[in-house]
Structure formats: C-alpha cells, structure tokens
C-alpha cells in the first residue's frame, strides 16, 4: 500500500468557531499512524493554494483517522467548508512518533492550544498512566476534556482567562504540580509536549532542570513532508565529532518532517 492515497472525508465537525475535527478514511491494510505522526492533506482544488498542509494524527478510527485543526489561513479555511463525502489527497502517516513510555515510567503530557491534536492519542494509548496538563486561552478552546479525564491518571486544565481550570499557563500548572506532589519527581518520569514554541522552550528547560527525558513535537512550514525539500528546518546542537566537517559556527539543521516532528528536547538548539 502506498502512503499517498485519496481519502474520503466522513465527518467535519465544528468544535467552536476556529477549531474543527475532520475524520477521513484511509486505505485498508494501510499502517495506522502512531501518536506524534502526521499527515499531509491537500486543501485545495487546482493550484491555489498549492501545497498540502501538515496535521498531526488526532485519533485513529476503525476506517481511518481524525485530525483536529484550527483555522489558520486560506488552506484551513477551505478545509472547514469541505463536506462529508469530499475526497482529498493525503500523504502519510509521516514522521517519527513519540517514543513510548516504559511500564515503569510516569508520563507528563503537556499540551498548549491546538497542540492537543498531537498528544491526545498518546494519552489514550496508555490509559491512567499520564499526568495531562492542558492549557488554552479560554475554556471554549479546551477540547475532549471528558475523554482526557478518563484516559489520564490526572488531568490539570488551565486557561489564560481562568474560564476553565486554573488561571494561568500550563507551565504554571506544571510548577505547581511538582511543588504540591514533590514525590512525583522521584518517579521515573518521561515528558511529552506540543504547543507554541515559547511553551516548548520552557518545557525543555524544565526537563533539563529536573533531569526528565523530554520529547517535544514541532510545527513547521513544509512543502513535501518526506525529507526532500528541506523547508522545515529546526536548529539542533552539533555533536562534536561532526562539527568539524561543517564550515564556521552556523547551526546544524534537522528536518521536522523526517527527523521529527518529535525531537528529544535535549538535542534542540534554542
């Protein structure tokens, strides 16, 4: 089977005015995506918009998969208007998934805004194993809260405006969690995060300070999704041995599409 296929949209639900859930079919016998992997989806007819858009796997279904997307520009605005029954060109599943937690590990899963799309299936896959910290601007931007509460060992919500959960950011919640549940830091922790870049930066720093293995998922503009166009660069730290063969002090770039989108936070050059 090919990772390039025509999918049929089976549902395209409005979660609120800016966020939607699209359900698509995938070919029989095709590998299901793993948490952290993504699909490239053709949003337009004809050449404008030209490129496919990248979306994380939100959740697998018996006949395909779901994505959770936010209206960001022209491509996603066109997707919003697509009706069930429409077919779209899809490439995927693509990229490296989140490394799975071992049985002895406790997960800290952190999602900011639409970053929930990337980590939701991870939390569902390992029931009652993760502390899930999920934040957004306001309560109406927090989705699938009941499902997350079922799947997670604990769910801690936060909003910038305090309309649901704690008022503040996921980072505030994270700090509070470790200060009120200090023994947690003695467990074998593994941390996963997806959200705005500033949040990922802070999560990485937190992981470093507390010596927690941390994986973060990046978003980037990309054209091909398969490692050919080299558009989706993310700067990583150089391994000393390799540094020599490169000229001057410029950063080393990895590809979000095939080296990521999930990276070991310790490898990223912020």
């Amino acid at each position, binding site marked *: 089977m090919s990772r390039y296929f025509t999918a049929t949209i089976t549902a395209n639900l409005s979660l609120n005015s800016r966020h939607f859930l699209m359900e698509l079919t995938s070919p029989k016998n095709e590998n299901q995506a793993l948490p952290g992997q993504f699909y490239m989806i053709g949003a337009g007819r004809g050449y404008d*918009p030209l*490129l*496919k858009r990248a979306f994380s796997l939100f959740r697998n279904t018996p006949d395909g998969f779901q994505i959770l997307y936010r209206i960001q520009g022209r491509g996603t605005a066109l997707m919003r208007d697509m009706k069930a029954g429409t077919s779209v060109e899809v490439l995927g599943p693509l990229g490296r998934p989140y490394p799975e937690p071992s049985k002895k590990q406790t997960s800290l899963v952190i999602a900011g805004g639409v970053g929930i799309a990337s980590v939701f299936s991870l939390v569902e896959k390992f029931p009652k194993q993760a502390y899930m910290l999920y934040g957004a601007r306001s309560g109406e931007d927090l989705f699938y809260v009941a499902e997350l509460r079922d799947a997670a060992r604990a769910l801690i919500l936060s909003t910038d405006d305090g309309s649901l959960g704690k008022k503040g950011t996921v980072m505030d919640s994270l700090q509070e969690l470790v200060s009120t549940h200090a023994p947690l830091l003695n467990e074998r922790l593994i941390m996963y995060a997806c959200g705005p870049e500033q949040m990922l930066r802070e999560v990485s720093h937190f992981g470093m300070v507390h010596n927690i293995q941390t994986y973060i998922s990046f978003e*980037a503009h*990309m054209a091909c999704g398969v490692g050919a*166009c080299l558009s989706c660069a993310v700067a990583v730290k150089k391994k000393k041995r390799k540094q020599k063969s*490169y000229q001057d002090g410029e*950063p080393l770039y990895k590809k979000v599409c095939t080296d990521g989108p999930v990276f070991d936070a310790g490898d990223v050059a912020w």
Partner: protein
Amino acid sequence: MSRLDVQIGSMHLKTPVVSASGCFGYGEEYSEFIDLNRLGAVVVKGISLKPMHGNPPPRICETPCGMLNSIGLQNVGLKVFLKEKLPFLRTFDTKVIVNIFGNSMKDYEKLASSLDDAGVDAIELNVSCPNVRKGGIWFGTDRKMLGKLVAAIKESLQHSVLITKLSPTVSDIGEFAQIAEDAGSDAVSLINTIPGIAIDINTRKPKIRNIIGGLSGPAIKPIALRMVYETYRRVTIPIIGMGGIMNASDALEFIIAGATAVAIGTANFINPLTTVEIIDGISSFMKQKNLTALDDLTGSLHAG
C-alpha cells in the same frame, strides 16, 4: 509504438522526464512512491565540496499558485554523497545527474572531476541559485565568468555529460545559453527559480527569513516556457526545460517550445507520482497523435 527516449549529449535517457534538482532529495525520498527506473534521470540536490547547513527558517512560504524557497543549498557534501547517496541511486536503471555548486572555480573543478571519476552520468552546473551569497549566481549572470567556468569544467570531464543550469535573472537568457554552448556545454537546463519576496503586513516581516527566495510552481510556467522558446532559437545543444510543470500537458508545452527533456520540481511535493504520471501522459498523447518519436515534437511550435 512511439518512442520516448531522448539524447542529451552522449547520454541516452529512456524517457524525457527527470527530477529537478532540490525537489527530489537524493532520490531515496521518493523511491517508496514511484519506480525510479522509469525516470530518464534523477537529478539530485545541489552538492558542494563541504556539507552546507542551509539558511535559517522559515525557509518557504506559499504564494498564489507557487512557493518561495530559500533553503540555501543545505546538502550532505561531496564525501557523504559519494559514500552514502550515490550507491543507492546506482541500484536503479536510470541516469544520475549531479547538480554541483561552488564558491570558486576551483570548487567546481574539484567537484566535477571527483563526480566524473565516480562515474556519474552528467554534471549539472548550478550557476543560478538565488539563495546563497557567494558564488553560484555570479557565475551565471556574468558573461565572461560563465564562459570561463564552463570551459574549465568541460576540460576536467572525461565521461560525464555537462549541463549548465541557467538563471532566469538575465535580460537575454538565449545569450547565456549560447555562451554555455560555445564554451563546450553539452546541454542547458532552465529555468532556475525566479527571485521574489512575500511580506506579512501585520509584522512587516518577510515571510521567509532570508527576505528573498526563489519562486517556483505553476506561477512561473509561462515565463519558463518563454525562456525555453527563446533559448531553442539560439542554441543547437539540447534543452532540459523546467518551471512549474504539473502534468503531461505542461510538459508537452515545454517540448513543443524546444525542450528535449523536462524536469519536474515543485509538483513532486504536491503529488509524489507526478513524474511517472507525466511519462504515461506523454506516451498516450503520442499514441493519440500517431507520433513515433519525441523528436517530431521538440521545437515544433507553429509560430506562423
């Protein structure tokens, strides 16, 4: 039975469809989607002597019917290419064309002779990348430098066919094609991307970090086609035409305008099967029109 094979210098391509440099990785990236054996050649991402990091992100942005990119020639470098990338391509029955990029005449000569020794079928001289500061495009837009470079590289090659990739940022591309031909180039390929800008009006920042990027995709097709047409009138060496080719009909336009072969770039990103779909499309067009060889089509524009 119509024949799809074409000749580029001493190199025989089984089909007139090749990948465009920078849009097909090192071939392996697309090998799970298509049978590389069907391509006339795989043209790989530009190779420099030393590996290059490329430009800081964001490196691309979408524009109407096209995209701007400023990758900055990120590549694995000659050594890794020869050791890790070329052996894979050699397992296929397709020609290997290596696009090379240097900061100096010496760089180009070293690259060309090493790749020639390694037995690559053709060298594509990249003298037209808009996204790096030094070298490259300076050779492609300076008449004297271009002639000198092409002649020197031709001299250093034993077996490999020499293709010069021309920049569209000159007032008369036919003249530059002629310079390449006179200096000994076996073929020319055109066009490289056209420099452009896109701006975010809210932040007033350029949409790509390098400010200027190269425009590709269907948006540039009429310009590319015009340049192929102009070049065909000026040179006798074969032309590899490219610029916004999305389907067989686009490819046929280039062939009728004067291209012997066509390269597929940005279209691979949208549909990884584009190259083979174009081969099939050209084949059925020829059957439909009762054409036996592509030669009958190349440069057959009825201008009258």
